[in-house]
């Protein structure tokens, strides 16, 4: 398999010129992966057209990312391309409203056992659909308040979850559950959201709510890593680990159904958050500017009934009554833990992903984009660390907390929320080692 990384941090005309210049060098790519940063969003058409012109027969996939890392630099501007010349890579895509259906169709299409799947974990639709969702939130919350029993409340939340799934959220654990083999998930949720974000690209066209799967045959190795200590053997043990790790932890009672949380300690999630921290309300204007904060250092951590692993859900002061979750909460304890996020050990915690690096293999990796607001320019230390380990070219992308599925997980990851399935709202990463 031969691979080539091309990147340019420029914008507009200069970006296209740079890419044209780089593409002059002969390289027969039959698969192209495009990673476009938010700053280059206005140039997406020009870049896609250039690729189509240069490689009309190639298969193409891509998505928007927060930043990318190459051997030379880490940029949150411009684009990065990964050109692949191999018959061992296949690309498939599906779209639809029902998560199970969409991902099981994707699974049937891709035959390879090693997969990298890109999908919008949270898609912020256009203005009309956002308004519809906000109205439906009020409608279902009124029903929720009137419900006589907890079971009835949960049923209403499940009903509302179906609305959220059809318009905006593909819950990460539900999505990955449908895919067979070893799967690395590029779950897209921008750090700052706006209308019709994030974007994906497939076969030289921009699409918004579709799921793309790369099947890779051959001797490919996928490594997963999280920055947390190992999980406990019971709810109490895991809770104790979390308390020790985060320093401050508060136990709370939640009422949730599928991907919707109705109550935390008898209040709405936003009311609960506002009692604890001083936070600015997210307004409609923020959506227009594309600056709705999608990350938060404050969150609810839910412990899995199946593995006693856990996943964190970040909390923000959104104008909603029923708070949406990015993973299905059905298999989690209702007694959640309110924590504020810290990474003990700082940025060096992320180095461990590269411990198993093979000196002579190309690597592609995805890092949790939360580390951008956390560590900012210190991210260059990761690049320096990788450069000290390998002389090969590589490409890394920063996207929201990558996920992983495998039948052969040896470590007791805290983020393993279902047997063989790892996902967490922060601190995760994966690396794909590509053979020659």
């Amino acid at each position: 398999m031969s691979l080539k990384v091309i990147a340019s941090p420029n914008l507009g005309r200069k970006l296209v010129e740079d890419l044209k210049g780089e593409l002059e060098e002969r390289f027969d790519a039959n698969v192209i992966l495009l990673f476009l940063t938010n700053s280059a969003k206005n140039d997406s058409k020009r870049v896609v057209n250039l690729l189509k012109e240069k490689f009309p027969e190639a298969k193409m996939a891509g998505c928007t990312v927060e930043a990318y890392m190459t051997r030379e630099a880490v940029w949150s501007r411009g684009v990065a391309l990964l050109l692949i010349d191999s018959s061992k890579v296949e690309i498939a895509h599906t779209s639809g409203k029902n998560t199970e259906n969409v991902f099981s169709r994707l699974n049937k299409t891709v035959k390879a056992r090693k997969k990298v799947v890109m999908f919008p974990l949270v898609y912020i639709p256009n203005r009309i659909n956002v308004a519809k969702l906000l109205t439906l939130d009020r409608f279902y919350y009124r029903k929720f308040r009137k419900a006589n029993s907890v079971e009835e409340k949960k049923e209403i939340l499940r009903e509302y979850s179906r609305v959220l799934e059809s318009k905006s959220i593909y819950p990460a654990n539900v999505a990955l559950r449908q895919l067979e083999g070893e799967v690395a998930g590029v779950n897209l949720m921008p750090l700052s959201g706006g209308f019709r974000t994030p974007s994906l690209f497939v076969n030289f066209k921009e699409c918004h709510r579709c799921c793309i799967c790369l099947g890779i045959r051959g001797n490919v190795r996928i490594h997963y890593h999280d920055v947390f200590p190992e999980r406990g053997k019971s709810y109490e043990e895991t809770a104790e680990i979390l308390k020790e790790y985060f320093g401050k932890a508060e136990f709370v009672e939640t009422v949730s159904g599928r991907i919707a949380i109705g109550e935390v300690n008898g209040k709405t999630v936003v009311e609960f958050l506002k009692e604890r921290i001083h936070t600015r309300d997210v307004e409609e204007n923020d959506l227009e500017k594309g600056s709705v904060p999608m990350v938060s250092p404050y969150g609810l951590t839910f412990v899995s009934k199946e593995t006693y692993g856990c996943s964190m859900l970040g909390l923000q002061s959104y104008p909603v009554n029923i708070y949406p979750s990015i993973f299905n909460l059905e298999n989690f304890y209702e007694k959640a833990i309110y924590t504020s996020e810290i990474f003990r050990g700082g940025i060096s915690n992320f180095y461990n992903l590269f411990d198993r690096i093979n000196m002579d293999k190309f690597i592609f990796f995805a890092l949790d984009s939360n580390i951008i607001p956390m560590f900012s320019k210190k991210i260059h230390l990761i690049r320096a660390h990788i450069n000290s380990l390998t002389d090969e070219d590589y490409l890394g992308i920063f996207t929201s907390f990558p996920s992983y599925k495998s039948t052969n997980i040896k470590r007791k990851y805290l983020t393993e929320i279902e047997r063989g399935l790892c996902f967490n709202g922060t601190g995760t990463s994966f690396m794909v080692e590509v053979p020659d």
Partner: protein
Amino acid sequence: MLLEISEILSPFAEDPAVKVTALYRIDGTPIFAKVNERSGRILNLLYWLESQIKNSLYYIFTKQLNEVSFTYCDTEIRMFAVSKTLVLVLVVEAEEFTSRYKFDMDAENVIKMLGELVECR
């Protein structure tokens, strides 16, 4: 050399969100400057910058500061030490929080590249 500097600075210089990209010598002489917004507001800021720059540079070098930043309403002036004789000045709209972190991450690339260019000369 100027061509190489302009090539290194182009990710900022070509970005409409960056109002001014400039590289100053320690004595306050601009070596490279690209102004993306021609308005009285930016002109005033540039005048102010000229009068302040020697002072700020003195602090950057003698007090071993790596960076100085000033914020005026919604405009931010960032000064980064590139080498013992050069300072990178970027004037940007004060943006929402994640953009600022990304901006610092990107600026680090440029500072490193400029540093290497100056060192090898």
